[in-house]
């Protein structure tokens, strides 16, 4: 912590890199918003709670998109929260459309832009048949790189376009609006014209990009690994491979590996408790509604109930 490099940086730079100011500003904003409630239990406690939640990654729940996007830590926390909340959907095996995933995202962040979800979907579906269903893990990993590295990906898209058109890649590139990407997509399958761009040239450009820019980029070593394996590649081919590479996942540290994606023992336990509680709630009501299977299920529930500690039922029969 007390490394010499840290002291070598000027204050502003240090603060900016750690995004300390962002969190301070947000903390003060929260204080302003809720001063009546917070004044009840003290400001010190508030700050403790706030920074605790920042550490735990729960500070981004139900916040506006501008905040969630503000720092890499926020983005990673959001990804993690999304995974935790909707892992069960994936576990259930449901395949959902892009719009439905967007809906789920909106449950956590009401003004999440559709554009990002669309871009993530394009990575999964290789920009084809946008109404296709996607699996949870596919979508999640694609969404991860799209959301975490969105600025980087925009720049890469611009570079890719330029390379396709044959422009000099070493000029300064300003990311254009991403909607341009799709209208200018070259027609594939023209006789004799190979798909995509040359891998080595592409890598050089990316290297330049990562050096130049301040926003987060994927580790160059990984990128090199991916690009060295092929001769030519397309934009979405590149992104697809990137999203599926386990190294990225580890670099980000937000999500578990693909194999472990559906595992979360602590949450599963909690879930079981919730399910049981809901069943107990439901049973008396069912009995009243005279459903055909009511008697059977009731009996079954009664047998099961003593096995678990009976939850205090807050539901009052009317």
């Amino acid at each position, binding site marked *: 912590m007390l490394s010499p490099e840290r002291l070598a940086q000027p204050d502003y730079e240090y603060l900016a890199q750690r995004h300390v100011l962002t969190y*301070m500003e947000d903390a003060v*904003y929260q204080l302003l918003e*809720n001063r009546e*409630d917070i004044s009840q239990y003290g400001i010190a406690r508030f700050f403790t709670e706030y920074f605790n939640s920042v550490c735990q990654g729960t500070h981004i729940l139900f916040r506006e998109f501008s905040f969630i996007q503000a720092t890499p830590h926020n983005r990673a926390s959001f990804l993690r929260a999304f995974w935790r909340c909707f892992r069960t959907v994936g576990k259930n095996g449901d395949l*959902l459309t892009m719009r439905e995933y967007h809906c789920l995202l909106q449950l956590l962040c009401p003004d999440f832009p559709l554009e990002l979800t669309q871009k993530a979907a394009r990575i999964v579906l290789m920009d084809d048949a946008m109404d296709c269903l996607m699996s949870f893990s596919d979508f999640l990993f694609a969404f991860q790189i799209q959301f975490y590295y969105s600025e980087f990906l925009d720049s890469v898209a611009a570079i890719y376009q330029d390379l396709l058109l044959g422009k000099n890649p070493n000029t300064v590139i300003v990311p254009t609006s991403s909607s341009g990407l799709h209208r200018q997509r070259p027609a594939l399958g023209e006789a004799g014209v190979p798909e995509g761009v040359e891998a080595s040239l592409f890598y050089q450009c990316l290297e330049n990009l990562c050096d130049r820019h301040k926003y987060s980029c994927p580790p160059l070593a990984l990128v090199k690994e991916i690009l060295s394996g092929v001769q030519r590649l397309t934009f979405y081919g590149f992104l697809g491979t990137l999203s599926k590479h386990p190294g990225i996942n580890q670099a980000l540290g937000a999500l578990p590996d693909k194999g472990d994606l559906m595992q979360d023992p602590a949450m599963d336990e909690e879930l079981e408790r919730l399910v049981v509680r809901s069943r107990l709630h439901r049973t008396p009501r069912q009995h009243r509604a005279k459903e055909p299977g009511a008697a059977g299920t009731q009996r079954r529930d009664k047998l099961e109930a003593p096995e678990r500690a009976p939850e205090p039922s807050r539901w009052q029969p009317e």
Partner: protein
Amino acid sequence: MIPGKYRSVSGRSANNVNCGLHLVIQTSSLPEKNKVEFKFNRDSPSFPGRLLQHDLERNYSSRQGDHINLVSSSMPSFPILQRSSEEKILYSDRLTLERQKLTVCPIIDGEEHLRLLNFQHNFITRIQNISNLQRLIFLDLYDNQIEEISGLSTLRSLRVLLLGKNRIKKISNLENLINLDVLDLHGNQITKIENVNHLCDLRVLNLARNLLSHVDNLNGLDSLTELNLRHNQITFVRDVDNLPSLQRLFLSFNNISSFDSVSCLADSTSLSDITFDGNPIAQESWYKHTVLQNMTQLRQLDMKRVTEEERRMASVVAKKEEEKKRESQKQSLLKEKKRLTINNVARHWDLQQRVANNATNQDRKDSASPPQDPCQTEGSTTSPFPEDTGAVDSGITSALQGLSVIDTHLVEVDGDTLSLYGSGALESLDRNWSVQTAGMITTVSFTFIEFDEIVQVLPKLKIKFPNSLHLKFKETNLVMLQQFNALAQLRRMDQLTVDPQGNPVVNFTLWKYYVLFRLSHFSMQKINGTEVTQNDMIMAERLFGILAHVASSELPQYRLISILGDARKKQFRYLLETKGKKPGIVNEENNDSKRLVGENTNRATLNYTTREFYNEKLEDIKEKKKFCKMYIEDLMKEATEVNMKNEALQKLWPQMFIELVRDAVIEIRNKNSYMKLCLQQITDQK
């Protein structure tokens, strides 16, 4: 035998058929051979016709001294009829030639005073050779083979003409028979009533068993009292009201199916006796009282007297029918108005959606909006709906033309269902609903209204319609799962119906589970008509339980309070805005929300803010964040300044310290001068 019913009419005792007749029939060409003598017993009993038949059947063999010889002539000429002078004197005015196997009318010589002529039951094909009988009053040609009415033009005195059971196809050549009293044409092949208009003395007209398909052309028959049209194919009747004397009309066994086709009967004041049996109309349930109601002058219907009771019943029933018709017309008018209103609302909705889509797509291509602007003006008349009026009854259209305003929203209460069409309808929730009506409503249906607008009136709904259990949404733009969070604030909900039309959210795989999860405290029974099973609930819990857990337990305390507080604040805001708020209700709200929080803390944080409010909030946030940013920046500047000064101090301090020490040492090096300096300093201080 003359049919009995004519007996009194003719006023003559024409039933005494010739008993005792001496006939001599002579053909002109073969005088000797064809001398036929008919001799009959003078004292024969009163039915000589039958005897005659017997005689004829016995091959005209002589019997009791009569010899009848009938020689048929091979040459086409007429037999000449002669009676003995005794006969002539006894029965000077009547002549019966029944069943004589006559194929032609014989020439009747020397009988110019004849008044009654009977040719029944023969095979005569043409009426001939009777022109000289100019005193003839009664002519009976029943049951022959006559194909055409002819040869009667000189019989100006004729009063009774019986031509039943022949083969006549057309009524004609009756011009000169202006004294005709009875005309019997039953059992023929007549298809049309014609050429009878001059018979102003005609009292009985019998056209039964013909081929008539309709009745008209009856004007001029001013004396007609009885008209027999049984056993025809009549479908409609006209002109009967032009018969001033008509008392009896027999229409049995025809093809009349509605009273409209015989409507002229209602206008006839003289009719007292009518029959309709055997017609399709007689099978209808409304037959009797319709006839009685329309023909109040009737005394007998289908040969049965009409009682006062029946008449009364008829008028009562008729009144009821009138009522019913008026009611149903009113109903259909209302329905039509409703349909047009709904169409109007739908049109508005479509336009709105298109405009919204344009705004999001930033597409200038859609030029469809301008030409349809006329529809957007409120209070438009029926003119924008040309395609609709085509389907409407002409009567209703004309009634609707009177309506100058077609609303842009519709509120309808139908038993237990309250239906709202168009966003303007939401204002109707402010109305003073009677407790009874409001209490009966169990289903509320929203169509063509933005869900965000509905969310804002849900608190009002909760108060005014406490028994609403079933909500239906159609064309309400439900696009996000989040929007269902808004429904959690209601008191109860047993059923939810979200119509796929206009609600894209239904296309999501998980929408039902999310509804069950978020609204689990309602213990819903049905969603979109399908029962909710235990498994569904468990699945919902499994899918989204963690979300709830995270949303409640992992949120920092202050955020929990702020989110819940926000929701409560919003509810109160809506309440305060409604008119006529009572303190009692506010307390109830308190209890409700408390109960809500107690039940489902883990879900209560999942709220829905309508887009409008959210954008407002974001604006707010921007302001506040700007302030915070500035504040923090100030703090940071201070801190960095201090830090800088600190660092600078750190750097400079060693040097400063050394200088301090050096200065001090230099000062003290010369003790004496230092003592003098100190003393000087002390005296200076004073």
